[in-house]
């Protein structure tokens, strides 16, 4: 061991004092030769012969020095350093080639890095909680109604009976009204039960968490603030604990501050509030509308917890008939958070991998072409004693240098692009922790590995081929026209065919998404979003106060001159929220089980349908007469009639449901269907209830205006403050912004994949052009002879063009075949277009044919313009 260390030490000393060692060796050898020569001379041999004999007897000094140096074991590094210097020199000598190569690699690697940063943040990076693998998300699941958030009653039962959890909590994000610096302010609140912080394993950095007592209806109000809100609103006041702040017009004691950066799942929260959960009347806080999170005990697994809860849900279903059929589904928190993004991210990763592959094929083709041109240079090096492996090593190092530079630029490009993407896609994707884009070890490693792999993929074949040559022929022919074998030509053609095929696949994907987007633009919404202003209010107080406040606002806003119609709705269409639950017809025993009838429920005010532009098809809309104390009225939509009133007149039927007030309501009218849940979701049976007869807390004001409502929002706000000085208003948006937001994802996907596909198309076209141009330049001589013998320029043009067209067609056919297989991966992102959509494929074929034709035409034209005299004289 120490021996080995001593050796290493001596070797290192050699490395440092390399020059000195070389000089010593030189001097020593020189002395040896001189002494030998003197010896010969003293034996009577003349100076010249003695000198020659001494030289001869000593041997090849250069080789001996080389061998001596090799003894020290640094020769590999020296050679690599030598090759590196040589590679950099070669790159500087052909800046055009270098720029094209580095740029296409940088784009390919950059695209991969950008997508990978998201994959890393969403799927790989551990969540920022202790033992994140033990945190699970729970949802309810019904064989008929599908997946739903959790009912507080279910939570209470699970919490009482399940043994698998260390902690279990429900939460609901809700806007909270409080006092801002100037007047009422709405902040992001989170209603939650006491164990939430235990579930995530993160505790207030200041103060304490909620006690169980504090999450009961009669507790005195307390609140915990997020670090960010504490900083923003209270200037990080260290004495904030115990202070009283106004929340929903109630004096509330601040009991804790959460640590900076903490968020529950993907939620940005300002104020955490205890959920006043009455165990005897859990539905008083809401129905299936809660997020549920649990922390597994260390001895429980996801599967065992799932099994336990399945049994419990079964028992609960037997106990409460209304919960029958509802099961539970447990998901690891990370999978739960990535449920929307995983598939798209993996798809995008595949797409950028294709782009990189095309870039690689292009590079390989370029290097092959260059390899032929450099053949005489390589032959010269080989004749000076460089082994074949040495030449391959040198060429590979050149590839590595190219891809390393490309990779470095790609890394910067990729990080920049991912930041830009977050800004661009903010509307389309809730990034949550995905937005924490940092250059961590995984991203760095990924890009590094990718660059290395890239260099090997595109560099190995050309290096191998370039080093295979007949030395004498290569030297004699001086590079030009030297044996470009049939095999090499075929290899290059295969590369171009592959590029075209990959580009076709991406183009088909982009085409399908573009068609989806245009289909979505044509979806009939069922309402008129133009000139509709919306704003959000959370109205507090008892039912009478809430009803009065809204009525007061409606009365005042109606009188504004630009207002055509005004109304309110609990959850806006395309706003992402809806109420869903069972209902039944009063006094009509349904042959099917009553629970099997389900509808969406919407609470709207009079004037709403006019304001939103939804037609009333039969009966009447709500009016001012539908108020507290009068006969409860309801409207239903067309889908409702189609599904539940096929054989009878819906008007006059009485229905009751799982509503906050289950009193029966009489159907007084039928309205048109609208797309409430999203552009691609078919309308569902919906019951509309009158706001005045059962006012909710959450309300959106919907105002139809005459024209572009400049300044109207301020005027409306002013009117609202006239009704109640402390009523905050938020989310002032035009209704078509919601429409545009629901198009944001399809727009993002088609834009992203369209961009990558365009990149692929350009790269493939460059590849085809490069190959054709090269082929023409090599055949100049042959074409010259042919034309001298009477070939027409047109015929030459056609034959060259035909060559390019053949490659493009083969690539196209291959690509279409692959696309038909692969397009099912985008099927879930499509709407109104099938993965085998013929117009899309035809369009891609036409586009590719056109671009391919241009790429082949330019060199073909050059071929047809060859002057036979010049071509022949040139050789």
């Amino acid at each position: 061991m120490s021996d080995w260390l001593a050796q290493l030490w001596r070797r290192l000393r050699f490395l440092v004092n390399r020059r000195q060692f070389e000089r010593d060796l030189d001097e020593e050898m020189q002395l040896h030769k001189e002494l030998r020569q003197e010896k010969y001379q003293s034996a009577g041999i003349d100076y010249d012969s003695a000198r020659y004999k001494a030289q001869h007897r000593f041997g090849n000094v250069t080789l001996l020095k080389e061998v001596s140096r090799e003894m020290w074991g640094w020769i590999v590094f020296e050679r690599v350093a030598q090759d590196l210097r040589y590679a950099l020199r070669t790159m500087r000598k052909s800046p055009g080639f270098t720029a094209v190569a580095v740029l296409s690699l940088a784009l390919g690697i950059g695209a991969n890095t950008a997508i990978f940063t998201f994959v890393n943040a969403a799927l790989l990076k551990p969540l920022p909680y202790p033992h994140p693998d033990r945190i699970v998300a729970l949802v309810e699941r019904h064989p008929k109604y599908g997946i739903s958030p959790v009912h507080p009653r279910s939570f209470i039962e699970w919490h009482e009976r399940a043994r698998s959890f260390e902690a279990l909590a429900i939460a609901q994000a809700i806007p909270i009204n409080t006092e801002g610096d100037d007047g009422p302010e709405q902040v992001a609140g989170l209603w939650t039960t006491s164990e939430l912080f235990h579930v995530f394993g993160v505790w207030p950095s200041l103060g304490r968490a909620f006690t169980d007592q504090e999450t009961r209806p009669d507790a005195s109000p307390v609140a915990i603030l997020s670090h960010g809100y504490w900083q923003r609103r209270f200037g990080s006041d260290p004495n904030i604990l115990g202070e009283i702040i106004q929340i929903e017009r109630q004096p509330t004691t601040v009991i804790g501050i959460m640590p900076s950066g903490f968020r529950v799942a993907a939620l940005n929260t300002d104020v955490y509030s205890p959920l006043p959960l009455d165990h005897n009347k859990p539905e008083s806080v809401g129905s299936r509308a809660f997020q549920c999170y649990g922390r597994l005990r260390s001895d429980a697994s996801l599967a065992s917890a799932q099994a336990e809860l399945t049994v419990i849900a079964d028992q609960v279903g037997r106990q409460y008939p209304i919960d029958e059929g509802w099961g539970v589904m447990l998901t690891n928190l990370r999978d739960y958070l990535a449920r929307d993004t995983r598939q798209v991210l993996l798809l995008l990763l595949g797409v950028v991998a294709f782009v990189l592959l095309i870039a690689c094929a292009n590079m390989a083709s370029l290097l092959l072409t260059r390899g032929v041109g450099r053949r005489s240079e390589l032959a010269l090096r080989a004749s000076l004693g460089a082994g074949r492996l040495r030449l391959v090593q040198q060429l590979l190092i050149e590839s590595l240098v190219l891809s390393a530079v490309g990779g470095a630029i790609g890394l910067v490009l990729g990080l920049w692009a991912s930041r830009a993407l977050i800004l661009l896609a903010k509307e389309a994707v809730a990034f949550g922790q995905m937005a924490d884009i940092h250059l961590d070890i995984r991203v760095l490693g990924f890009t590094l590995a990718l660059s290395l792999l890239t260099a090997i993929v595109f560099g190995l074949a050309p290096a191998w081929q370039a080093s295979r040559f007949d030395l004498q022929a290569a030297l004699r022919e001086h590079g030009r026209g030297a044996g470009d074998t049939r095999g090499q030509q075929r290899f290059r053609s295969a590369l171009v065919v592959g590029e075209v095929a990959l580009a076709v696949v991406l183009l088909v994907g982009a085409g399908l998404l573009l068609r989806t987007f245009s289909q979505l633009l044509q979806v009939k919404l069922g309402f008129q979003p133009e000139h509709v202003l919306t704003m959000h209010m959370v109205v507090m107080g008892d039912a009478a106060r809430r009803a009065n406040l809204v009525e007061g606002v409606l009365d005042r806003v109606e009188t504004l001159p630009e207002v055509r119609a005004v109304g309110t709705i609990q959850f806006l269409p395309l706003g992402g929220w809806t109420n869903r639950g069972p209902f039944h017809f009063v006094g009509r025993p349904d042959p099917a089980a009553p629970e099997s009838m389900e509808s969406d429920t919407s609470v709207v005010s009079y004037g709403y349908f006019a304001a939103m532009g939804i037609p009333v098809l039969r009966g009447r809309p709500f009016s001012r007469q539908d108020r507290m104390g009068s006969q409860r009225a309801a409207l239903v939509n067309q889908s409702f009639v189609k599904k539940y009133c096929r054989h009878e007149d819906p008007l006059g039927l009485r229905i009751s449901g799982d509503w906050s007030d289950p009193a029966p309501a009489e159907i007084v009218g039928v309205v048109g269907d609208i797309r409430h849940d999203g552009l691609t979701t078919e309308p569902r049976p919906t019951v509309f209830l009158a706001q005045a007869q059962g006012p909710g807390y959450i309300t959106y004001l919907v105002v139809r205006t005459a024209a572009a409502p400049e300044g109207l929002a301020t005027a409306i706000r002013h009117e609202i403050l006239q009704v109640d000085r402390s009523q905050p208003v938020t989310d002032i948006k035009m209704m078509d912004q919601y429409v545009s937001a629901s198009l944001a994802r399809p727009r993002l996907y088609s834009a992203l994949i369209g961009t990558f596909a365009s990149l692929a198309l350009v790269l493939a076209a460059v590849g085809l052009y490069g190959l054709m141009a090269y082929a023409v330049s090599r055949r100049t001589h042959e074409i010259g002879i042919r034309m001298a013998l009477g070939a027409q320029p047109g015929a030459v043009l056609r034959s060259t063009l035909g060559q390019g067209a053949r490659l493009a067609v083969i690539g196209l056919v291959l690509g279409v075949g692959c696309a038909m297989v692969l397009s099912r991966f985008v099927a879930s992102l499509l709407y109104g277009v099938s993965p085998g959509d013929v117009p899309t494929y035809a369009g891609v074929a036409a586009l590719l044919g056109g671009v391919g034709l241009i790429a082949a035409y330019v060199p073909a034209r050059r071929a047809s313009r060859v002057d036979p005299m010049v071509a022949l004289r040139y050789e």
Partner: protein
Amino acid sequence: MSKGPMRDEIPPGTLYMLILKTLARGGEMHGFEVANSIQQISEDVLQVEEGSLYPALQRMLIKGWVKAEWGVTAGNRRARYYKLTKPGRKQLEIELSQFQRVNQAITRVIQTA
């Protein structure tokens, strides 16, 4: 090409042993002296391709079998003198016993033939 007495190439693998032994006998020597010494003692039978001495000496320096120091020759010229170290002496013994073993074995094979 070769004139004068018949000279044999040194059997492969024995160069280190010869150098070590020469240094063990002669104390401090520079490269030329080592080459000359081998040739003289073998009565001109063993012919070192003289240059190959130097890579061998480099390797022995790495291994720590010899130490080198610059000195002055009798003719007042700068020369690098090599000297056996303790590990070098040990190595010499190893090489010698190995050589003798192989040599005896070969001799037996030849004699029984």
